[in-house]
């Protein structure tokens, strides 16, 4: 029984979005029926779901998508609960690291408080706290985000140093193409390359062209092939998900026990 309920809910979850795409924009109906259905043209059906030629299946698409998002958004509280269970308990029992847990919970509660208090009046103190200190372009949150993001500048360097070594064919290929591209994107790399290959068969070739060729031509083929592969796999997986096929491992219920 439970299994059947879950199966049907899963099916219902998918059927609308499946049909909305697979059916034509307007499903043809005879004009007489259409006129009769429309009536005086002010009813909700006539306004949203009946076109000039027929029935518009996706007439309420925006509202239905909205509803679906509402369900998903409701899960936000799960995150809150997870955090309170982990950090709230640590703080309450003063376990190791409680100071940090306190910081986390304070950061969260303060953000929520100033985010809602005086909502819509950015000149108030809470508005300033939210709009400047926390969310201002040079404030805490963007600062933390940009700083985290920019750590990548250091990490690409260590990753390149560690991995780009002529130890295997693959590593060597990675290295050579990365080097070509890197030299091709800094002006002084271009000068450097031209100076080395002033004579010989490569004298008419610019490294800029080589870089563009790799990025525009070679990459396109490889990336496209990869994505076509997982595209097909994704479609198959999606269908199985929708029809609850082979989901045994995730929905072996406590029911049987």
């Amino acid at each position, binding site marked *: 029984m439970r299994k059947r309920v*879950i199966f049907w809910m899963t099916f219902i979850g*998918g059927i609308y979005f499946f049909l*909305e795409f*697979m059916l034509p924009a307007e499903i043809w109906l005879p004009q007489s029926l259409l006129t009769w259905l429309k009536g005086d043209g002010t009813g*909700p059906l006539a306004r949203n779901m009946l076109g000039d030629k027929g029935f518009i299946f996706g007439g309420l698409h925006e509202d239905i998508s909205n509803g679906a*998002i509402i369900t*998903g*958004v*409701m899960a*936000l509280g*799960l*995150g*809150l*609960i997870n*955090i309170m269970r982990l950090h709230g308990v640590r703080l309450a029992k003063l376990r190791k690291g409680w100071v*940090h*847990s306190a*910081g*986390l919970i304070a950061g*969260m509660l303060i953000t*929520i408080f100033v*985010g*809602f208090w005086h909502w819509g009046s950015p000149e108030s103190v809470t508005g300033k706290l939210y709009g*400047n*200190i*926390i*969310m*201002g372009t*040079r404030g*805490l949150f963007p*600062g933390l985000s940009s*700083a985290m993001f920019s*750590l990548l*500048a250091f990490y*690409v360097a260590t990753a390149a140093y560690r991995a780009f070594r002529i130890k295997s064919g*693959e590593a060597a290929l*990675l290295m050579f*193409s990365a*080097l070509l591209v890197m030299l091709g*994107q800094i002006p002084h790399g271009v000068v450097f390359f031209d100076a080395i290959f002033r004579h010989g068969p490569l004298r008419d070739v610019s490294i800029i062209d080589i870089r563009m060729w790799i*990025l525009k*031509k*070679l*990459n396109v*083929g*490889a*990336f496209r*092939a*990869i994505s076509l*592969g997982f*595209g097909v796999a*994704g479609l198959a997986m*999606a*269908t199985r*998900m*929708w*029809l609850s096929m082979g989901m045994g491992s995730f*929905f072996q*219920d*406590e029911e049987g026990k």
Partner: protein
Amino acid sequence: MDGWLRAEIIAGGIATIAIYSFLWKENPFYRFFEHLFIGMGVGIGIVVTVRNFMWPKGIKPILCGAGLMEPGPRESYGAAYVLYLIPLMMGFLYYAIYSKRYRWMARIVIGFSLGMGGGLAFKGFFSEYLPQIIKSFKPLVVWQAGGGLDWMESFNNVVLFFTLTCVMSYFFFSFDHELPVIKQASASGRWLMMVSFGAFFGATVMARMALLVERLQFLIEDWAPAALPWLAHSGGGGG
């Protein structure tokens, strides 16, 4: 400088330095800001979702639809918007996972969202991959406008087709790769992928470095004068 702006810059700078302190090693200063960051991230997620979505697109339509609230100017909500209570109530089922007895009910909403993911994938597949398939229809022989073979363009198209073939053959799992043709094609496919990945790595280096330049510019040009004014005074004596 306005006091709030100055506070904003000082706070942002300290946060930046805290993150960079991790480069030396994991330390309490970093750890504090890491936790603060997560806390603010959760808080902002809730504030933004409620302010930009849940209230205007969910709660407000329900309240207006039920006649409990006056809609704003240029807004109108029919009584049908009360139906949004259904997804709202369904969302509450997520919280059933915290009850031993009703835990199974959470699977209803989880199943619903899995099913939705499945249904949406059809549009995703065709709108994303069909154009890619069509863009691959390139002639292997291209003539120049005035006659004569366009070597470069033909070569490019041959490379594209060859790469596509080899890399796709690498991703066949249930066929025996011992067949010499397939074996060589899939091996070349792997090599071609490595060239592409290396190139992409190289291409991102500039963008990543630019991010750090931005942060350093902020620290040097905005933060240092705001947080350490005496530095600016002693340094900029001439101006």
